[in-house]
């Protein structure tokens, strides 16, 4: 986060201390782990050392599966393919070109670049606005299948089904490979541990909990996932390269989807979303496999399969949290860190040239579902400083209109401009960039994030997160702070959002949307389920925002008293059309509105 945006005093010592102790824990853990790895080859037998080299490299790939699946919710069967790409880069170049230090570096570079290119293509295929998580899993399954077939067709060049072996490689001892692979795994685990606990790491969890909401908070979730996949691909490719160099053999199985699913099994058994669980799970299962598969070949695989099914059904979090619970590792969780709230410098129209001529402009907007016309011929424009209420009976198209305003894919026809920017066919995170902030009817943003974390997610677009640490302060715009203080949210900053009362959840949603510093605020029933004093307070905040900051607010509301108190203008929707557009007084006195609300009018009438 840039410190330029922070006006208040910096950091509470408690948080800074906690963050430091995190860092210290990682250092201590890494040093201990590296020391154990340093000594191990002198204690263990050759077979074990050899197994563990492979186990370390597999575990590095399992880590990428855990970050993608456990933390971000992207179930992937395809990380084996990237491992295979790295391995084949080494195998192919050492076999067909030869081995030297220069060629070794070239092979590594080729493997990494190939992995990046493939990950980019797979990411583009898998992650786009509106893609289903199932589809991404499907593509991740297709990748290793295709790759394996490509290797089979390669004939002598790729060694087909028997792979490549007997090529020259680094002339170093097995101990050195043990240290290299072990060191790689420890560094990766430490880095991943810091990353997932950092402010940026919370974004992954936000995407897992509620990806659409991330989009509406201006976060390009697809891009985050593509970047993550690419980083995971590079990690896996390097592991595969090291594997090929150390074992001097590559085979199609190392790219295949059976290996890809094994990685998922190891992660699930160890405990998804724990990092250490998958590492330990992989090391234990892989070394056990090399010992036991000789003695009980079919039964061992059967046992793994059974254990996997039982864990998925009965212990979905895996074995790590169970073991952690036994040792009382949970004590650290009692003190949840809470950042200090400070006021951020106002950055209205962040990323825009300035305020538009009109805040919102709709021309001929239509929305059809098949032959059902939910919206038809919607034309209106709103200036800055207007508080426009959309009213109408259920099914009039109010929420659909909100959806069209915040997502360029939603409407069937017509044009929408936000601050003079064409909404075109743009996804929500781009439209947020034009100044839209949308508060949803249902308040259920991110279940497993705390109030403070949720608010920081909402600031991502403007402030940008820290990648390997946590900020000690949370800078929010004035309006958001007002809501937080008036509703008492500041007292529960460390509480997970799912534990809040309904009213508090609504307040948090509003504070999150205000944290985006929108210039056009869309509110879908902001007062639903709130008490009278809470309603009055929200009404005051909204009118203040319009008056002091020139915001444009569009409000969908059923409570007509609330509408009357705060609106400067009202649009009445009925059966997908605008039937009235005027001041509060005009609408209140309208016979038409009374008829509509009493259910007397069925055919759309001309205003």
């Amino acid at each position, binding site marked *: 986060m840039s410190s330029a945006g922070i006006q208040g005093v910096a950091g509470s010592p408690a948080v800074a201390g906690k963050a430091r102790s995190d860092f210290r824990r990682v250092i201590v853990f890494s040093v201990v782990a590296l020391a154990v790895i340093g000594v191990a080859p002198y204690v263990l037998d050759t077979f074990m050392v050899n197994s563990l080299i492979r186990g370390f490299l597999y575990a590095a790939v399992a880590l990428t599966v855990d970050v993608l699946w456990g933390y971000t919710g992207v*179930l992937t069967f395809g990380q084996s393919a990237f491992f295979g790409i790295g391995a084949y880069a080494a195998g192919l170049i050492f076999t067909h070109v030869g081995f030297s230090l220069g060629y070794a570096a070239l092979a590594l570079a080729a493997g990494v670049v190939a992995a990046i290119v493939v990950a980019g293509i797979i990411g583009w*295929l898998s992650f*786009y606005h*509106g*893609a*289903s*998580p*199932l*589809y991404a*899993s*499907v*593509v991740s*399954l*297709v990748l290793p*299948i*295709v790759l394996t*077939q490509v290797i*089979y*067709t390669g004939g002598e060049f790729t060694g087909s089904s028997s792979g490549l072996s007997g090529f020259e490689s680094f002339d170093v001892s097995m101990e050195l490979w043990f240290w290299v692979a072990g060191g790689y795994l420890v560094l990766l685990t430490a880095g991943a541990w810091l990353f997932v606990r950092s402010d940026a790491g919370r974004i992954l969890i936000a995407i897992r909990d509620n990806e659409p909401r991330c989009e509406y908070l201006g976060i390009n979730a697809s891009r985050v996932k593509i970047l993550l996949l690419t980083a995971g691909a590079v990690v896996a490719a390097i592991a595969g390269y090291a594997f090929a160099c150390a074992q001097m053999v590559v085979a199609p199985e190392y790219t295949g989807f059976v290996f890809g*699913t094994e990685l*998922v*099994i190891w992660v*699930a058994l160890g405990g998804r979303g724990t990092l250490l669980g998958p590492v330990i799970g992989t090391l234990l299962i892989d070394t056990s496999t090399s010992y036991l598969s000789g003695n009980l070949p*079919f*039964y061992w*695989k*059967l046992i*793994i*399969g*059974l254990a*996997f*099914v039982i864990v*998925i*059904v*009965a212990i*979905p979090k895996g074995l790590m949290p169970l073991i952690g619970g036994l040792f009382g590792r949970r004590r650290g969780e009692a003190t949840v860190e809470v950042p200090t709230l400070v006021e951020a410098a106002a950055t209205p129209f962040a990323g825009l040239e300035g305020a538009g001529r009109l805040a919102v402009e709709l021309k001929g907007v239509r929305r059809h579902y*098949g032959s059902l016309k939910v919206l038809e011929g919607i034309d209106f424009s709103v200036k800055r400083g207007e508080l426009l209420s959309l009213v109408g009976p259920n099914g009039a198209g109010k929420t659909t209109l909100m959806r069209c305003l915040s997502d360029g894919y939603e409407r069937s026809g017509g044009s929408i401009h936000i601050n003079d920017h064409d909404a075109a066919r743009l996804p929500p995170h781009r439209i947020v960039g034009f100044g839209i902030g949308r508060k949803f009817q249902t308040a259920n943003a991110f279940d497993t994030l705390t109030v403070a974390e949720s608010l920081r997610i909402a600031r991502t677009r403007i402030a940008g997160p820290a990648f390997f640490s946590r900020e000690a302060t949370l800078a929010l715009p004035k309006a958001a702070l007002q809501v937080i203080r008036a509703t008492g949210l500041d007292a529960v900053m460390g509480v997970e959002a799912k534990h809040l009362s309904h009213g508090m959840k609504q307040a948090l949603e509003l504070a999150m949307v205000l944290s985006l510093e929108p210039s056009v605020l869309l509110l879908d029933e902001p007062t639903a389920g709130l008490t009278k004093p809470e309603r009055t307070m929200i009404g005051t905040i909204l009118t203040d925002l319009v008056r002091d900051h020139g915001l444009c607010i569009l409000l969908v509301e059923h409570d007509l008293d609330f509408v009357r108190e705060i609106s400067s203008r009202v649009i009445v929707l009925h059966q997908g059309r605008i039937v009235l557009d005027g001041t509060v007084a005009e609408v209140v006195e309208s016979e038409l509105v009374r008829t509509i609300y009493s259910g007397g009018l069925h055919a759309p009438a001309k205003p």
Partner: protein
Amino acid sequence: MIATLLDIVTSAAILYAVAAGLLIVFGVMKIINFAHGGFLTIGGYSALAVTKLGWNPWASLVFATGIGFVAGMIIERLVVKPLYSRPLDAILATWGLGIIIGQLITIAFGREVQFVQSPMSGAIEFAGASYSSYRLVLVLAATVIGVGIAALLQKTRLGLVTRAVIMNEDLARGLGINSGLVRFFTFSLGAALASLAGALITPLSSVDPNMGVPWLVNAFMLVLVSGVSFMSLLVATVVFGGAQVLVSTYVSPVLGGLTIVVAAAVLMRVRPQGFSRE
């Protein structure tokens, strides 16, 4: 030319028979049953058991269907039911089941490739070309399966209830429909259909403990591009099955094997609703 055309028709029929059970489970339960390949394998080995017992090869169809149905009933209660609310976990658990089925079969029958007696052999003259008569029988079998499912869904009370659950499970439950029972029956039916398909296809090739996997992947892609419509599935199997045959015949068999997965993945990227009409 005629032979290629017949290849397309019979390939589409085989794909349809294999994918139908997966589609009905996906439609009702909104989960992809990765144990489908395992059920297919069960069907293949049921046919092998019939051969080994010296029964009439046609009996394998009934036998496989029954075994598949029972296996489906057991697995639905033990594994699938607890995962209704976790669809991605259901994929994983059913994948694990596939591994377990494969290993149990390996332990019982051995891991080697084995051959099943075909119910009928020989070729018949068809439009001037000589063609495997068993492959033509498969077209008939796929038609029977397709018509049977359609009749079940359209003409019976169970079908009506099932369609209600497919369209809106919450509403159906609110109307007093026991959706748990619908799911139970659907999963068992899906397993039975997979097993039947396994028994149907084994005379064309052979059985081995992993025979279900390549079929699973293709069937899975076909289901995803079909939405929850059996008509769309028919279109998808004809188009993709046809593409597979053409690529295998005129380009390369290996690429032919990849045609369905790659084409389906790309199709879904550019047209997420696939072959269904939105």
